């Protein structure tokens, strides 16, 4: 700023002096004096300008006394912040293949719509009307809270659920206890692609994992007499809440199918839940085939 003002002053002086000389009709000697004065003004301006430039080159910014937040600025901070956003946008590493499974999932959904339901037998009676031996540990209090169409009996056994759906019943018989126990922690054993619509289901409790770019959903089903009597979300690992799809487990039981409604705004979570149910049912089918 100082340099600019000095330059303006010099330029103005150089412009005014000749005009003044012409107006006063100077002779040669006076013109020489006038030009000399202009040259001196120009020299002074150049000198001041050079001093300004030199001092600017030697300028050192004073230590910043502001808060710590003002002191931090470098590309490593930016890079680490970008890394977080990039990973967050990309979703979990484990679910990177979710996009590759899209076409397969769509094909499976189409097949599920055209295939008969899992079992041709009529839907089982609601657990409230079922013999108590088939639904042990039923809690009347919790059952009362269930929706009318929710056929899942209540139990306090499932503490890992997010309160979505209803807790799973205990296995229907002692013979199935071991099978059910075997299924604990086996959510990764089968994928949705192993599921065969219409194939026979083995009684027991099964879990399956479905993936989405936003995280995984572990679905759980309970099979009694070849029917799905319970479906729920055992573990919601998505970055978004699973509350928006909490009505889907009920549809699985009502329709005896993985063909649930799509949820606007939660299509990925819906698909992950479907895959989880399909993987759980595939496990049940595999157990049935093995026997």
């Amino acid at each position, binding site marked *: 700023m100082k340099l600019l003002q000095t330059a303006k002053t010099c330029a103005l002086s150089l412009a005014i002096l000749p005009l003044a000389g012409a107006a006063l009709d100077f002779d040669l000697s006076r013109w020489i004096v006038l030009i000399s004065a202009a040259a001196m003004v120009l020299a002074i301006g150049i000198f001041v300008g050079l001093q300004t430039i030199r001092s600017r080159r030697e300028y050192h910014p004073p230590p910043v006394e502001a808060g710590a937040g003002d002191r931090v600025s*470098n590309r490593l901070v930016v890079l680490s*912040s970008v890394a977080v956003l990039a990973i967050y946008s990309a979703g979990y*590493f484990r679910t990177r293949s979710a996009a590759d499974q899209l076409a397969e999932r769509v094909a499976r959904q189409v097949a599920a719509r055209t295939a008969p339901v899992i079992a041709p037998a009529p839907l089982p009676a609601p657990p409230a009307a079922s013999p108590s031996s088939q639904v042990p540990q039923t809690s009347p209090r919790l059952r009362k809270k269930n929706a009318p169409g929710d056929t899942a009996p209540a139990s306090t056994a499932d503490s890992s659920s997010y309160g979505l759906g209803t807790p799973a019943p205990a296995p229907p018989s002692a013979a199935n206890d071991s099978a059910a126990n075997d299924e604990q922690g086996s959510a990764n054993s089968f994928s949705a692609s192993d599921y065969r619509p219409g194939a026979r289901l083995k009684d027991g409790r099964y879990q399956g994992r479905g993936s989405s770019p936003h995280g995984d959903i572990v679905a759980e089903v309970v099979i009694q007499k070849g029917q799905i009597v319970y479906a729920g979300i055992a573990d919601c690992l998505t970055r978004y809440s699973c509350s928006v799809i909490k009505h889907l487990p009920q549809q699985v039981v009502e329709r005896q199918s993985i063909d649930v409604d799509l949820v606007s705004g939660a299509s990925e979570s819906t698909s992950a839940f479907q895959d989880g149910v399909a993987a759980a049912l595939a496990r049940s089918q595999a157990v049935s085939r093995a026997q």
Partner: protein
Amino acid sequence: MSETVCRRGVPLMGTLVTIDVVGNVVGHGLSQGPAQLEAAVERAFGWFRQIEECCSRFEPRSELVRLSAHVGVPVPASAILYEAVQFALTVAEETGGAFDPTVGSAMEMRGFNRDYRSGRPVHSAPEHGGAATYRDVRLDPHRKNITLLRPLLLDLGAVAKGLAIDMAAHELRPFENFAINAGGDIYVSGHNPQGGPWSVGIRHPRVPDALCDSLLVSDRAVCTSGDYERRCPAETGPDAETDGHHILDLRAARSVSSARSGCSAHAAASVTVIAPTAMLADALSTAAFVLGPAEGIALLERLGVDGVIISPTLERHATRGMRSDYEPSGSTILPDAEGPASDCPGGSDRPGRAN
């Protein structure tokens, strides 16, 4: 007055990871409900599991170990691995190799080869992997590929935990006031239950269970690297100060031994770095530890972050902004180093010890 509405601890990444979320019950300080809080905390812990699963050199099926099996060919990498490696390589360039993520083979050679979960020894490093440097790793930013130009094993231990903390902090950001502590690597946001900045203690490097400094921090990560953690079974000396530990100085080894098996850095006893992100603080604390007080403080000043370096003689070297921004008066019990940091014993001029 606020109160802690959520406190959970889960053993992850070989340490105990705790998350504290503070809210204001009376004023409904939480911007989201308890269900959202529980889900967010679960997702935060999930990131630790995911990043460990991806970046562990003790897990044969991890993406990091599988990457080391492919030499000379571009390998598509997940976002987690690519970003972690990219950041580690950038820090390596900034520090002239004092921080080097290709230290995996050297770590294995020095006995850091046991899975903390099972206790079993693992062997993930390729043959002749000790001769590589960070310049032997190439990244393709467009295809997100990683290419190893020679056999090597990456070790992302100095960035992975910080990255996990940052991801967890990102999940908890809507709750404003929280603290994440992963074995001493900490990120704090907002205020503590008393409504003030969070108080973070720095462990005394020579006196167990004692603090040598106390910081008041908010919206910052605080990470410490010390020679008292993870002692090396393959390098022991006559006293505690010369025993081997887990922070290796590959530069010193390079000048001494062609085998490049690395040697423990002895230029500092502990380094604490305060930075906006935990990944940055984690990596720079390791780099400054290797560089020592003189170069370490210069590095932190140049990068615009603050930190404290405790020399092996327990002299305290701090950046200019430490006391004014983070330290209440009289909080430190160690004497400040007199004169420039390069004059202190144990400075960066101290030669590294070859294995």
